[in-house]
């Protein structure tokens, strides 16, 4: 992969913050970090990843340019929530300062107003997204399978962030919880095939400022490189306070992986 010289000369540098990777990493969530790192490196953008733990200081968290959170298993979700609560202020501050963030799998639930780990138990979330999540009713199944959705947030679809704006979001969902969006947040995408936030209202994911949440778990970004580039471009824009045009990369394999799943679900690409 070529290094683009005029880019390195600009000396861009990004710090990715990965929230509690030891417990919030259920199923291939690391794929997102790997993709963000490589897509920076391949463009000559210096990049490092800070693994946020319970010992990370508020000051270190404040130095993060792009935040990522993966999913925790049910047993670990409450431990994860304790850790998150201890870092509530610095994390909220990042989001309010327009730092882009991606929360996948079960982690958007922890970022909402509250969630129910089991029926009848309510746990307070971080309150970043104006959403709440409920555990399934006894007659409701876990929502599992490939999903294709259309991104409906204009600012993500338009240039200059995305070089080849593909409005399709493709991934795998596996969740028991049902999430409902309230007035101060918007859905990320409209479900074409699959279940989405709650299997009922046709929405998938959530957006607040530059923070994105989605039930699509694990490696979301390998098959959605446009979204990865949006996060990188936004992070640079917020940090360096100017519009950034990212150098295009060869995404032939990424597009093939994406269209293979979309076509299999009967979605024309």
């Amino acid at each position: 992969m070529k290094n683009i010289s005029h880019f390195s000369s600009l000396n861009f540098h990004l710090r990715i913050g990965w929230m509690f990777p030891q417990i919030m990493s259920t199923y291939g969530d690391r794929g997102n970090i790997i993709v963000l790192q490589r897509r920076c490196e391949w463009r000559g953008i210096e990049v490092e990843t800070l693994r946020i733990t319970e010992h990370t200081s508020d000051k270190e968290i404040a130095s993060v340019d792009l935040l990522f959170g993966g999913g925790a298993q049910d047993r670990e979700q409450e431990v994860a929530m304790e850790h998150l609560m201890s870092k509530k202020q610095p994390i909220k501050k990042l989001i309010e300062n327009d730092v882009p963030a991606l929360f996948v799998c079960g982690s958007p639930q922890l970022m909402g107003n509250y969630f129910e780990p089991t029926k009848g138990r309510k746990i307070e979330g971080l309150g970043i997204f104006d959403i709440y999540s409920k555990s399934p009713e006894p007659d409701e199944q876990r929502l599992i399978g490939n999903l294709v959705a259309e991104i409906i947030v204009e600012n993500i679809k338009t240039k200059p962030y995305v070089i080849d704006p593909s409005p399709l979001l493709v991934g795998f969902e596996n969740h028991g919880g049902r999430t409902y969006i309230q007035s101060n947040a918007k859905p990320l995408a409209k479900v074409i095939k699959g279940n989405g936030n709650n299997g009922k209202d046709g929405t998938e994911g959530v957006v607040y400022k530059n923070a994105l949440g989605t039930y699509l778990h694990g490696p979301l970004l390998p098959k959605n490189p446009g979204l990865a580039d949006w996060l990188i471009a936004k992070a640079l824009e917020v940090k360096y306070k100017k519009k950034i045009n990212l150098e295009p990369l060869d995404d032939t394999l990424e597009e093939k992986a994406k269209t293979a799943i979309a076509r299999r679900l009967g979605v024309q690409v």
Partner: protein
Amino acid sequence: MLNKVLIALGKSISKTSQLLNRGNGSTWPGHVALTGNKNFIKQILAKSKTKVIIVAGTNGKTTTASLIRTGLEKNGFSVLQNDSGANLLNGIASTILLNVNAAGKLKQEYAILEVDEGTLPLILKQITPDYLVLLNLFRDQLDRYGELNTIVNKWLETVETLSERTTLVLNANDPQIAYLGLKRKNTKYFGLETIKGTKDHPQHAADSILCLRCNKRLTFSEVYFSHIGNWHCENCLLKRPAIDVSIFPESSLKGTYNKFNLLAATLVLRELKLTEGQIGKSLEEFKPAFGRQETINYKGKSVQIFLTKNPTSFNQSYVTIKDLRAKVLLVVLNDRVPDGHDVSWIWDVDLPELEKFKHILVAGDRVYDMALRFKYDNYQDVEAFEKLDEAIEAGIKYIDEEETLYILPTYSAMLETRKILTGKKIL
């Protein structure tokens, strides 16, 4: 009387299905028997004198069961074993049905049954085994089994109700397996004794990192792979139990994971009163089960298959072929029912020193997902094939006569690969 009718019916279904060449009909007769009588398995076993050994765990079931079988057969005992493709309730009922005699009894001295981890609680309601061997639990097919903790909880409940008569054979180095035996008398542990004794970290794909007793993070003084190691809890002082068997016989099986399969089999065979000499001699000629480190000669070249089902087995296969100085690698990633529909796990595997491979090829239903995994570890020249036979042909061309083409397939991909390499269908 009912069972006799079901047995006759089941056997004729099996014959018909063989005649029609629709596989070996390995689960249909059991389905019919259990529909006719849900206590079929329990009743047949109660009438028979057969001792039952159940083997469960995410990885290593088939190899461990086959090792125990080999040890017993080479020492003159008769043994019944189910196919790895028949490890759910119907498959086990079929295995039993097809082996009973006219009197409705099993004639073998031992039955070794490998059981799917999700099915184990159901099976233990039907069967009280003489030995229950629990190997490990790793994240595997979350879309099918649910989260790993769900399985751990079900196993805990099941073991609590298990008869004292059953000897529990547990892996001391897997914290969540070892925990199952802590309150129980009739329990034996296998495992490796620690050499290093310094602080060590579980691999990225590790699962069992929280203490089952107090929910605090466990500490490892040595990690063999994934979360398998010498563990203890600094909070509640729970620690790896004392090990009963830590020495195993010489074997051609490669890889650390196979040490644990050998240890489990050795412990069971010792319990069955075989001597060290008898065990060693019987296992030294052990041939791997199909697709598990199996070597096949294809067009004058050597091809070795390492079944690879989840991050832990991928990591272990990868380390093992690196030790064998592999130069050409083909990974075949399918996402059918036996493989799991979710292929996210490929991002949990570690791929050190990719540059040492001359060629990396990928194929399978999710060929492009696998290609991306290599691309994003900076192996740009990965070669993607939509057709498996073309990938194998290309791989064969890349190796010299003294080299080996290493293939890492998921389960259904392994069956397809073998079909191409041997020209016949199995199962």
